[in-house]
């Protein structure tokens, strides 16, 4: 009994040690404190579980889906109501909606991750450089940002897709191009609050180049608020992608993308509600998951809360 308790307890003490003995221990201890703060928030934990479930479903779609997502049974299985054989029913081409939603999770993740990977670093770089350099660099970069902010997001994305041609890759690109300006603003605001602090002055006094200061000393301070914002934006990204899919400018049939699926179910939404309802519900759940996760991360990572 006591032996089984000694293990985890001492590991906890090791993580929370006031005198870490190595770089690794200091980093892990810090991560552990953030994790404790995060997991104390029940709703955020639910959000994390939803996102983890999405990852698992996307990874094991081949195993989890009982039918093919693209090939239906036109003869016998058109527009069937939900049943034991087809959990979420079938669509107008006789395809199993449950399988399509499971495969569709891959496309949702694809869009969300690609947009985050493209938009967040652009915003971070533009914002920190503008904030640290000041002067005309700041003016030029922020006016460009303002121009992008002046357009409604979906309209600008529509214009880009119209120019580049419909398809999920172009939809991703269009969403990324329209979603970086808020990140640049956040990063710039954070940069302005720290650029005149003594610890940045101290690094300048060591002879560090501006490039090094921005990259190694200012960016790490901006990252946590950016992560929070990106996570909260993920729901919006999913909805924009679904919206583009719905308008026929995102993923093209027969790709099982959730927005496209809603668009094709629109015609019989009153009689066969499950065709549009099931993917709509999937979007709702995943968006909710990202929002809850973002809220929890804000509490766990916010540099202004507590001594972190």
């Amino acid at each position, binding site marked *: 009994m006591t032996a089984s308790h000694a293990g985890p307890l001492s590991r906890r003490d090791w993580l929370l040690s*006031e*005198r*870490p*003995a*190595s*770089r690794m*221990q*200091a980093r892990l201890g*810090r991560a552990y404190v953030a994790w404790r703060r995060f997991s104390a928030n029940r709703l955020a934990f639910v959000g994390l579980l939803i996102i983890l479930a999405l990852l698992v479903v996307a990874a094991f779609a081949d195993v989890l889906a009982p039918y093919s997502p693209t090939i239906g049974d036109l003869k016998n299985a058109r527009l069937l109501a939900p049943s034991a054989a087809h959990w979420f029913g079938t669509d107008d081409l006789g395809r199993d909606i449950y399988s399509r939603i499971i495969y569709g999770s891959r496309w949702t993740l694809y869009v969300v991750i690609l947009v985050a990977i493209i938009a967040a670093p652009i915003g971070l770089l533009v914002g920190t450089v503008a904030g640290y350099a000041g002067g005309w660099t700041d003016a030029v970069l922020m006016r460009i940002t303002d121009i992008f902010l002046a357009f409604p997001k979906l309209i600008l994305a529509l214009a880009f897709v119209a120019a580049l041609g419909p398809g999920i890759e172009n939809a991703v690109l269009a969403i990324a191009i329209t979603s970086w300006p808020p990140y640049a603003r956040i990063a710039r605001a954070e940069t302005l609050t720290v650029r005149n*602090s*003594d*610890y940045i*002055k*101290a*690094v*300048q*006094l*060591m*002879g*560090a180049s501006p490039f*090094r200061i921005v990259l*190694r*000393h200012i960016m*790490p*301070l901006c990252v946590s608020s950016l992560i929070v914002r990106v996570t909260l934006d993920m729901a919006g990204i999913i909805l924009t992608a679904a919206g583009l899919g719905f308008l026929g400018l995102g993923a093209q049939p027969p790709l099982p993308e959730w927005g496209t699926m809603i668009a094709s179910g629109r015609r019989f939404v009153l009689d066969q509600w499950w065709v549009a309802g099931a993917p709509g519900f999937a979007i709702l759940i995943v968006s909710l998951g990202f929002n809850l996760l973002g809220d929890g991360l804000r509490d766990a990572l916010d*540099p202004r809360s507590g*001594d*972190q």
Partner: protein
Amino acid sequence: MTSALFIDRLEVIFDRFRALKGVSLEVQSGESFGLVGESGSGKSTLLRAIAGLAPVASGSITVNGKTLGPRRDKAFYREVQMVFQDPYGSLHPRQTVDRLLQEPLAIHGFADGEKRIVRALDEVGLGTGFRFRYAHQLSGGQRQRVAIARALILEPSILLLDEPTSALDASVQAEVLNLLEEVRRRRKLTFLMVSHDLAIITHMCERLMVMQNGEAVEKLTADDLVRRHVTKDYTRNLLRASEGFVRTA
């Protein structure tokens, strides 16, 4: 004796405000020189101008015989380092002590970083137990020791001290001052120290300059100050003020 620091008619102008109005100063190598004056007298601005953190409008700064241009090069930062006033604001909140001390070594390309960090921590009396702590896990005095270690790790010959103890309580103040004294003696450093506390200046410095409104009022030796051999009214007022609150009957 050569002069470590020679400042000739230095002017600093922020926007349209003249923070320094033609201040001249000479500090000998190995000397400890004090700057005193009320808030806003320009003493901290003088330090920042030397470090390259304040806009110099005219005048010249000469360090160890080399006159500085508007841009400081890496060699300058190995000669001159600075300890800031507020130990709570001068350490990066997301970096461990280890990372803080590694940064100057990485910038200047030192190979024996590991050894230097251990030695620097030992020198300021912290030991390796503090090496992987974050700033928020340290007390004010410990933070200031880390800041001193960071300034010393590049082995500068001149240390600029901007009220290094004013944010600390009295007993910790004495510890940090003793540490600075000891380091100066061992490394034969030149100090240029700002303080509004005349007791600290007379204890730490051989000579001092009194400043007011961005101008030099007078230059004294610490002995002069102790014996009240002052010539200007302003200095006399400052001395009276430093005696503190006197209750009259």
